[in-house]
């Protein structure tokens, strides 16, 4: 389970995610939510808790394990476009793991952030027309996705064996 909280501060859009368990996907930036017009936008990313494993996609579209990052840490990287490939962070420990990103406030509705913020029309209007006013996005994002810590593939819950046969169901399907 991943939960996110978003706050538009005086000058920035603050995007904060936390996950409670091992294998939880923390953040997944895909080619689909990279906006070409943000090609040169840099983002500041930080970890305030946990052990976070980074994966990236190689030229063949396969996930590759990169490195483990341990909180506390903060760094500047390109978030969109350019040479950036899709990447994913996964909780690598049996404890809470939290990641935050900071972008300039005017980018709150672009690319990945447009896809992942639940700002209402009223909140968007406030952010755009009152640039100094704090806006806490009221509808926070909650997502459940687990990934393999070696391959980054999504873990699909194992099907529970079902002993019931079609005959047992005794359903009249009609003509």
């Amino acid at each position: 389970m991943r939960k996110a909280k978003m706050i538009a501060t005086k000058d920035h859009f603050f995007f904060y995610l936390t996950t409670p368990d091992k294998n939880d996907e923390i953040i997944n930036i895909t080619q689909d939510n990279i906006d070409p017009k943000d090609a040169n936008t840099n983002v500041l990313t930080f970890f305030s808790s946990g052990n976070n494993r980074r994966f990236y996609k190689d030229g063949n579209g396969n996930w590759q394990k990169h490195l483990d990052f341990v909180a506390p840490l903060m760094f500047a990287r390109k978030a969109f476009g350019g040479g950036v490939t899709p990447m994913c962070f996964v909780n690598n420990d049996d404890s809470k793991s939290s990641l935050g990103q900071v972008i300039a406030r005017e980018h709150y509705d672009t690319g990945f952030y447009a896809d992942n913020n639940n700002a209402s029309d009223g909140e968007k209007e406030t952010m755009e027309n009152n640039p100094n006013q704090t806006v806490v996005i009221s509808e926070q994002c909650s997502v459940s996705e687990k990934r393999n810590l070696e391959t980054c593939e999504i873990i699909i819950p194992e099907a529970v064996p079902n002993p019931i046969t079609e005959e047992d169901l005794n359903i009249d399907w009609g003509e």
Partner: protein
Amino acid sequence: MAYARLVFNTQTLAIMNMVDPGETINYDWSLDEDYSVVLVEGSVTVGGNTLTGVNEYRVQPDEQLSVTGAGSTRSYFISLFRADDDSAMDQMVSEASKTRMRTFAPTWIDDGWPDNPVTTWEPEFTSGNHTYTKAIMETQIANSEWD
């Protein structure tokens, strides 16, 4: 343990601050305009109030930020500034630092990541209260390679 360290890009200067319970981080400088601080973990006392959860505190004009760790766990908060705002930057850093923040890009930037990125700041934290000065900011900006 208390510690503060900044990271910048062309638009943003962010200071990541860490305090253990009972420890205080002081900024011995202020701005003539307000700015945002966001608590992301733990609980702190700031401006006479206790702040918890993921929440913003707005530092007021001419206020020297002073934050003390409360509760029983380590707290983290991020101070946010616009690196492309002359008004704020002129009060915080030198011309050389302004120029570096607005023009610096590492050689690996188009590849996405450095060959040997730093993977944690944990060893850099030390015990006790911490005063975060403009001189420290200057040094951190000059030495930052984004790795």
